[in-house]
């Protein structure tokens, strides 16, 4: 399975993206607001300055008099180091100040402050203008006071606040990313728990998962359970099919064999008898091959996902020997058990299969009235089951080649076998991290096969 991205990472990235967007947005908003606030402050100061100047207007001998109050200018320092310009006009004529300042809007109402932004002396300026009507003698004279200021202070305040906002936004972003990572991990925990619960299961545990899971995971759980159910059904169906197939094939074989045996009793002609014996042998051979092929397939299947149950090799040897005792007894072969406890972790079915194949071989190749010994012992970190027979031995050829698939010893004579027995045994112990040891028996007669397995 190739992992394509990670939900956790994607979630974190998504949340981080949202956080980045929010950070950017809040930074932009704070910057805008800060600028606005600074501009408003400047406007207020400019207005106050203009109004302060306007309030000193008076008429004296029919002339408009004015004294610029110190405070009107000193207050302009409040925002920052900005250049200041001003103009006072009476009935359109310049009274004092900078004549070339941009003119205020037309239709300025008395007492109302008009703000405007313009360009003066190569700089952007903000202007506040107020109109005051002064009675000079009997004549009302409109006086406009304009106070202007460059915007450096505003820019500076806005820039400083913007910088501060940027720092805060970055900090917010960093915290948000950290929290996002935590949140992503937390929200994915149920998923991981389910995964852990599934992977903790044994290879054949297909029971439905019964776990409290978040609503979002319910479809997954349902799908998983449905899949396991289908898988279970499918396995059961194929098992049933195999069973059915085996039954259909083997029952007629059994009939043939039994019939042939019966026929053997009623036939006295030696040629006929030989023929019947041939039939029986063929039946045996095919059934044995089929069995071993099935065993081999089972081993390959189960070894993929090996169970690790605690198993005592002594118990295993005792049980397996018991099922083969009758077969051995037929030929007066004595099964001798020398058992010492040796615990391993493994698949009981597979180990039984391995031992059975080795033991079956030993019984098959042993001459009558001999002993096959089964010894369970420990050797360092390994436990081993050793099967020693008094048969013809392993021949002179390379010992290791015997475990190759379909390879039979050179000296098997007329004994029925498919050659898979040792292969199965080897595959099983290899799947358990052990190995199969083939030796000639000590006294030079017979074979000695050991299943060597790491102790639990």
């Amino acid at each position, binding site marked *: 399975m190739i992992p394509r991205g990670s939900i956790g990472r994607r979630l974190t990235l998504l949340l981080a993206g949202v956080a980045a967007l929010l950070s950017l947005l809040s930074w932009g908003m704070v910057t805008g607001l800060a600028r606005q606030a600074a501009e408003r402050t400047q406007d207020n100061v400019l207005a106050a300055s203009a109004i302060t100047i306007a309030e000193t207007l008076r008429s004296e001998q029919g002339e408009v008099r004015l004294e610029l*109050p110190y405070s009107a200018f000193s207050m*302009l320092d409040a925002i920052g180091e900005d*250049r200041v310009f001003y103009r006072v006009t009476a009935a359109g004529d310049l009274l004092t100040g900078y004549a070339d300042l941009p003119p205020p809007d037309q239709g300025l109402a008395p007492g109302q402050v008009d703000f405007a932004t313009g360009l003066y*002396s190569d700089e952007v300026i903000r202007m506040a203008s107020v109109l005051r009507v002064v009675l000079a003698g009997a004549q009302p004279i409109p006086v406009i006071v304009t106070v202007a200021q460059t915007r450096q202070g505003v820019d500076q305040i806005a820039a400083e606040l913007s910088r501060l906002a940027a720092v805060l936004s970055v900090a917010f972003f960093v915290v948000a990313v950290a929290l996002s990572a935590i949140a992503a991990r937390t929200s994915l925990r149920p998923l991981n728990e389910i995964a852990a619960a599934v992977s903790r299961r044994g290879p054949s545990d297909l029971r439905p998962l019964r776990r409290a899971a978040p609503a979002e995971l319910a479809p997954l759980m349902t799908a998983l359970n449905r899949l396991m159910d289908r898988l279970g059904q499918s396995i059961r169906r194929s098992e049933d099919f195999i069973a059915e197939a085996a039954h259909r094939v083997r029952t007629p074989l059994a009939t043939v064999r039994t019939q042939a045996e019966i026929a053997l009793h009623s036939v006295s002609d030696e040629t006929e008898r030989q023929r019947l014996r041939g039939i029986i042998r063929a039946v045996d051979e095919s059934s044995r091959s089929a069995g071993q092929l099935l065993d081999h397939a089972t081993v390959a299947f189960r070894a993929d996902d090996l169970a690790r149950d605690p198993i005592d090799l002594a118990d295993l040897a005792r049980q397996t020997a018991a099922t083969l005792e009758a077969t051995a007894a037929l030929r007066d072969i004595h099964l001798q058990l020398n058992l010492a406890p040796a615990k391993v972790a493994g698949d009981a079915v597979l180990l039984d299969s391995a031992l059975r194949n080795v033991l079956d071989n030993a019984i098959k190749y042993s001459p009558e009235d001999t002993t096959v010994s089964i010894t369970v012992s420990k050797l360092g970190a390994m436990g081993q089951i050793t099967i020693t027979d008094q048969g013809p031995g392993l021949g002179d050829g390379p010992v290791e080649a015997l475990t190759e698939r379909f390879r039979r010893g050179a000296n098997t004579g007329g004994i029925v076998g498919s050659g898979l027995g040792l292969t199965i045994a080897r595959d099983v112990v290899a799947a358990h991290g052990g190995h199969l040891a083939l030796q000639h028996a000590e006294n030079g007669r017979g074979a000695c096969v050991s299943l060597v397995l790491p102790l639990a």
Partner: protein
Amino acid sequence: MRILGFALGVILSWTGAILAYEVEEERFYPGTGPVVLRVISTADLAVFEPYLRAFQTQRPDISIAYTVTSSTDLYAAIRDGAPFDLALSSAMDLQFQLANDGFARSYRSAMTADLPDWARWRDLIFAFSAERAVVVVNGERIAGLPLPATRQELIALLRDNPARFHGAVGTYDVRESGLGYLFATKETRSTDVYWRLVEVMGRLDPKLYCCSGQMIDDVAAGRLAMAYNVLGSYAAERLARDSGGRVQILRMEDFENIMLRTAIIPRNAEQVEAAGALIDLLLETGVRATADDWPLPPLGETGGADGAGFSPIRLGPALMVYLDPLNRRTFLAEWENAMEQR
């Protein structure tokens, strides 16, 4: 550009840019290189030469053309676009006006960055010396009288001894001296006894001066018993030169006028780098902690032991208030009323 001419402009000749100012002193300090730094200043060479020498040891390649003029002439010259690379003036209000109206260009260096906020404005104008206005008295002419420490005591002294002080009190003619005008307007805002003091002085037939140098000379010579609002650095310098104990300096404890000597680089300056270098040197001397053998007091010195009273005139738009012709007219009218009441 401003169309409105200041009332100050009355004393300027408007015939041409070169003739817009009256040269009081002029000297050329040749350097090894082709660069000529043209400095226009209100400080006499006697005071300023040590700085120029120091600068030339640092930068021997730069020649300096140093021109001394009055603060109003300097203002008019820069406004008129006279070719200078650096303008040094004791009239901080006029310097400020130049900067505000866009006649200065900005300059930035490590030295300017180290300046306290009150000593610079917008990277356009830099203070390099803070000087207090003091009262200078002739010890012989006021012998036996208590030395005043505040303006109240000063008023009392003048009022109680009209015979001794009649015709023997000197101060700036604020109509002529930009610095005097600056000090006077600052005092009207800072202390409520100013007008009373002016009235008392007015009754004593005061002598009015354009410059502090002459005032100190007259005090030293015994022609004046007392000079009011004299720029401290000059006074101190003179004292150091001929200290016979006759000239004494009195500091007013109730309130002191502290003026900042400032530098700007004119908009049309050509040797900006050299001008900046000289500003840096002035600032280096200006921010030094103690007065040594430099003629001008440092920025910080005035804020020493009696730092509580240290409040230099602030560099800001408020400086423009009394430069406004309407305000100036009003103020001068009032001042004349008080001063010339005989």
